């Protein structure tokens, strides 16, 4: 799997699959994201954005999770080909 340039999760288009590289920050939000399974190496798919553009729905570890763009911006990902 060739890795393409990295970006943050809030810039990923619906339908795209990405791999988590790192989580930014050390606070409670980052911790919650990590606990929900957003750890380096995990694959996730952006399913859709809400009608008003925020929040977004992702799928990882076989379940669906919703988070806001500002939280998604803490997640560094690389696109999978």
């Amino acid at each position, binding site marked *: 799997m060739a890795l393409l340039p990295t970006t943050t999760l809030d810039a990923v288009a619906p339908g795209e699959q990405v791999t988590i590289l790192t989580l930014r920050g050390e606070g409670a939000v980052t911790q919650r994201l990590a606990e929900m399974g957003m750890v380096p190496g995990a694959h996730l798919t952006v399913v859709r954005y809400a009608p008003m553009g925020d929040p977004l729905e992702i799928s990882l570890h076989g379940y669906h999770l*919703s988070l806001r763009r500002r939280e998604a911006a803490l997640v560094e990902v690389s696109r999978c080909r």
Partner: protein
Amino acid sequence: MPVTPRQTIALIGNPNTGKTTLFNALTGLRQRVANYPGVTVEQKLGELQIDGTAVNLVDLPGTYSLAAISPDEMITVDTLLGQQAGAPQVKGILAIVDASNLPRNLYLVSQLIECSLPIVIALNMMDLALAKGVAVDAARLSERLGIPVIPTCAHRGTGIVEVRRALANLCNGRVPVDGPRFPERVEGALQGLQRALASLALQLGRSIQRVEAERILIDTEGLAARRLIDKIPAFGVQLTAWRQQATENGSLAGLEAIIRYQWIRQVTDVAMTQMTSARKTVSDRIDAVLTHKILGTGIFLAITAIVFQSIYTWAVPLQDGIDTVLGWMGKHVTSLLPAGALQSLIVDGLIKGVGSVLVFIPQIALLFCFIALLEDCGYMARAAFLMDRLLSRIGLSGKSFIPLLSSFACAVPGIMAARTIDNRRDRLATILAAPLMSCSARLPVYTLLIAAFIPPTAYLGGWIDLRGLTLFAMHLVGICVAIPVIWGLKCSVLRGQPAPFVMELPSYKRPSLRLVAFRVYDRVHAFVRRAGTIIAAMTIVIWALAYFPHEATQAHAIDSSALGRIGRFAEPAFAPLGWDWRIAMAAIAAFPAREVVVAAFGTIFHVGAEVSETSPGLRAALQTATWPDGRALFTLPVALSLMVFFALCCQCGATVATIRRETNSWGWAWFTFGYMTALAYAGAFAVYHIAIALGG
């Protein structure tokens, strides 16, 4: 036979795992609410019989992790670890795990393993897992974890007998040991911290277990560390040193998650097989429609319209039925008992008091029927997903939408619906602002005053008139005020970091009608038990104030009653709003319920208490009422001032009692009453003077 103290087992698991269904299946209706001071979430205590021995089961709120950020989450952890004052000592854990979502569910399990308590796992939703193409091998999972694992389908009642049997031996069972291992650096820091905490045991008044020490070390923004430092400020420096020792760079919490998910991977490799490659499930297909930009929004609006309509109009025939029955009872009592204090107490105090409680039941039952259905089938999370953007602008999340909307029908079920909001500050902000939404009980007040004082000037060829516009404006007032109020609360008493909106979107499933029925029963029961008594008591107090001191010879006894005296005494306070003592008295009499103001006007203006907001007699009486010097009492500015007052005030005993119940604090209840009364007074004052200045 020696009497052994009853043992307590904690039921814990992620949200959306069928925990409540399992709890109900195990305990039936033998449950009660455990109440701890200052706690806003409630824990349920149930009792179950195993081979003739009674065991307590405490239902802990659904949680993803033991890392507690909010006080409510901390209580869950404290209860589990036996540190919660007033809670029974937990001797074993029943962990419920969603088989269709195994990896993330095992995260909490990996933390529970460290609690030094015996565990049983109920592996729920096996059917859903198979439908998703995931096979979980319970025997292998059990072997790998060293924990008994029992497959269940709680909503079908399968596996319950086996869970019961496993619980019988649980408290004597062995404690699992095979959890994730931290790297040496972290382990070393953790043990060092534990030793340091052990030497502080006397100062802390308790000893701290390993799990809590772990939370203190890892959760930099967690409550475990914060409360320790609050108690022993000097420890902050030491703690920072331990944290630095544990990790050179990067987040310790991130490291914890990595280690736990590595361990989870090892477990799922043994016990879980993905049979089909990730295919689109039925749930995904439903979701594609229900969260679609146009279709999904349309369906959402249709569903909310139905929910709103149900509590706004469908509840009315039921409420009228309750009124009719109570009116009939009142008539009978009147004919049976001689006129006097006892008759008045029963008819105007007791029956009215009970009636003012019962009248809310249809709305509460209907709203919770819908909420339970929507929640259990998985739609509630989607509703929050769709509406989040709108509400995030005022610092709330999508989860506040249904409670706030419901409050337009009635704040009582709306406030109760705020339980679905897991963030404490968001939930409080929603509860505190909910009574500002213009509820149906304000309608009689608006109807009476609009019909009496607003001219039916028509606009746009008769499509709209000034009366309709006024009614609309009254509904807008609440919303326009609620926005700055919520914003203000979020900047002051409820200040804090914006809550992350990281929300699971559970798979859709067929709702369990049993669970829905149970939820409705539970909510109605809770309302009648806890709020009902307070409401009935308030009604009787107001009755007594209006009745005593009683002089039968006087034609208009209310004028000389304690209430009348209070009205006269308070007149100067209400004069800036354009009110006389009679209006003040009616407003005070309407403290238990706004709509009472109509009947109060009937009594005060000598039309009789049996009036409705559409009685021409009452309308005429208000139009002709005068000040002692002959000026008309109700001018347009006074009518507007009164309407705005009732739009913004919290003249509703049921709301106050429900806030007290839902927040478990009189403080928040009186805070709401206080700020709304202040706003109502300010709003009425402003409207009165603006209307006069505009020549009204």
